[in-house]
């Protein structure tokens, strides 16, 4: 039925150029859209799709090559386009098989990776490298890697061989000691490096707490030398900073903790006894708080007093006690004296 064919041809237009079709012309139909065969080409290179394969992106069709050039990610290792699963890592795209540990070449796509110094590493290689890397200091003078222990000087690390001992001139290694300040020396003399032998001969005291030399203020106590900030209460670990300390069994305590631990709180005020202590009846008093427990009259340290439930009672109060109580107290006193 030509009429019908003609009718339909009149209503059909090419999707690209909007022109109609000649009656016997080949028409490309792609998903209901119609094209001249010459119009059905790659949006980038205007060439026919090889083997009819095209890629559609944002309504435009591309040949495989142009689609990859324009839109497909490039593998960071082999440079080929990545079709299918793309691994996005280290600011690049990778074929799963190309993204591997830079130490042991293990595939990382599924195992996961750790970035270390700009390199992607598997967990075990990262752990190994990190452990190795701890010793690898960079010399502040020559910028070379330091094998083993560095020499530390003015807060930086160096190869020991860049320096010599300020006293004997011997080449130094990491055991060299930096002396920042010494009494009797001008400021120009400070911050010198010494070999261990010369340093020991200088007689710089060693802190009893941190075992490091003491170059500033020294506290001497308990038969040892201490950094001021390292001489601390054995209980609260606060430095004494020149405040009075109390010694017990080779340890030093602040006033508060010495009394808390070893007694000598006043029976009356329950505070640490700052001045002289009066001790009697298994108790301690501030001298000015020692008083009769019945009438509160102050007792001098030489006053005669009676013991009453291990507390002092002055003579006047004792004599005001009921006679039968005095009798019992007397009997109890004889008992304790006999014992």
């Amino acid at each position, binding site marked *: 039925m030509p009429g019908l064919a003609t009718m339909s041809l009149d209503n059909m237009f090419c999707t690209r150029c909007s022109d109609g079709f000649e009656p016997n012309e080949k028409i490309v139909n792609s998903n209901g859209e119609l094209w001249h065969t010459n119009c059905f080409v790659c949006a980038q290179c205007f060439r026919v799709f090889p083997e009819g394969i095209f890629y559609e992106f944002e309504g435009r069709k591309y040949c495989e090559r142009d689609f990859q050039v324009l839109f497909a990610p490039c593998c960071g290792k082999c440079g080929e386009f990545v079709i299918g699963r793309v691994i996005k890592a280290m600011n690049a795209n990778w074929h799963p098989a190309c993204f591997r540990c830079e130490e042991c070449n293990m595939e990382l796509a599924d195992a996961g990776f750790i970035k270390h110094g700009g390199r992607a590493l598997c967990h075990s290689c990262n752990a190994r490298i990190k452990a190795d890397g701890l010793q690898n200091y960079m010399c502040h003078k020559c910028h070379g890697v330091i094998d083993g222990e560095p020499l530390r000087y003015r807060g930086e690390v160096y190869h020991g061989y860049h320096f010599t001992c300020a006293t004997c001139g011997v080449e130094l290694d990491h055991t060299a000691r930096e002396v920042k300040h010494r009494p009797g020396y001008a400021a120009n003399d400070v911050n010198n490096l010494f070999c261990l032998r010369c340093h020991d001969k200088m007689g710089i005291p060693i802190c009893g707490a941190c075992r490091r030399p003491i170059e500033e203020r020294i506290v001497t106590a308990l038969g040892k030398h201490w950094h001021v900030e390292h001489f601390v209460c054995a209980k609260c670990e606060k430095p004494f900073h020149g405040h009075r300390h109390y010694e017990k069994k080779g340890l030093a305590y602040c006033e508060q903790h010495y009394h808390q631990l070893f007694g000598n709180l006043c029976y009356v005020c329950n505070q640490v006894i700052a001045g002289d202590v009066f001790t009697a009846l*298994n108790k301690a008093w501030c001298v000015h708080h020692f008083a009769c427990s019945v009438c509160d009259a102050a007792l001098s340290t030489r006053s005669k007093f009676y013991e009453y*439930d291990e507390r002092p009672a002055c003579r006047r109060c004792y004599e*005001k006690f009921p006679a039968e109580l005095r009798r019992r107290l007397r009997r109890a006193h004889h*008992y304790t004296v006999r014992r």
Partner: protein
Amino acid sequence: MSHHPTVSCIPNTGKMSKAKKVIEEAKEINNPEIDLVDKGISSLDEIPSLFTLENITRLSLSHNKIQVVPAALANLVNLEILNLANNHIQELPVSLSSLPKLRILNVSLNRLYTLPRGFGSFPVLEILDLTYNNLNEKTLSGNFFIMDSLRALYLGDNDFEFLPPEIGNLKNLQILSMRENDLIEVPRELGQLSRLRELHLQGNRLVVLPPEIGSLDLASNKSVLRLEGNFWVPPIEDQLKLGPSHVLDYLRSETYKVLYSRHMSAKPPPPAQTLDKSKKASRAA
């Protein structure tokens, strides 16, 4: 004596003016410590100016004849030490227990038969002396053992037969005197008072001690343990002859634990009361 008020008051008038003088002087020089000891005071209402001394920290009223402690005494809110020893007090006002700074309260040598309800609510009380009164476990106030700031409790010369197990709540207690009561038993909870350094149990009717007492630090040279004048089972009595530290050693032994549990299940009748308390001054009407 209280039934001869006119007789007792006449010779005291001289002393009374002395009391007023003390208060006037204290006011003048702003003395925070008031001594009104042995001034013949029979009622604090005779010296109303006392209640205006709001700044005082210590008030000593020992050796007077005070029968009633007015509730208004609690207006002296700065009091830290209140000493009412050796008076004729039969009752205390509960208001005392609201004194916010009271650390030491001495009501020894009085005639207390009871304590007011709510007596235990002292916020900072450290030393409580109730020696030589007529108190027992039944007449203590209900909240007596909530005073956990207490470091010394003197209950000697009273009439306790039992010590309530709530004594274990007084965690800061360092001194406990139960000298010359009628104690038949002491509770195991006494062993929880880990800071206890002085324990007076002499002159009671005790036969055994809970083994828990053995864990207390009562044998050091700063400690006091008084046990004499009881009815101890022979092994304890034998150890006591060697010294209190030997008793503590013995209390910790397995042998003693067996003896104690046997004794507690057998519950033999307690020893008879031996102290004649009728002559006690605290019994005077």
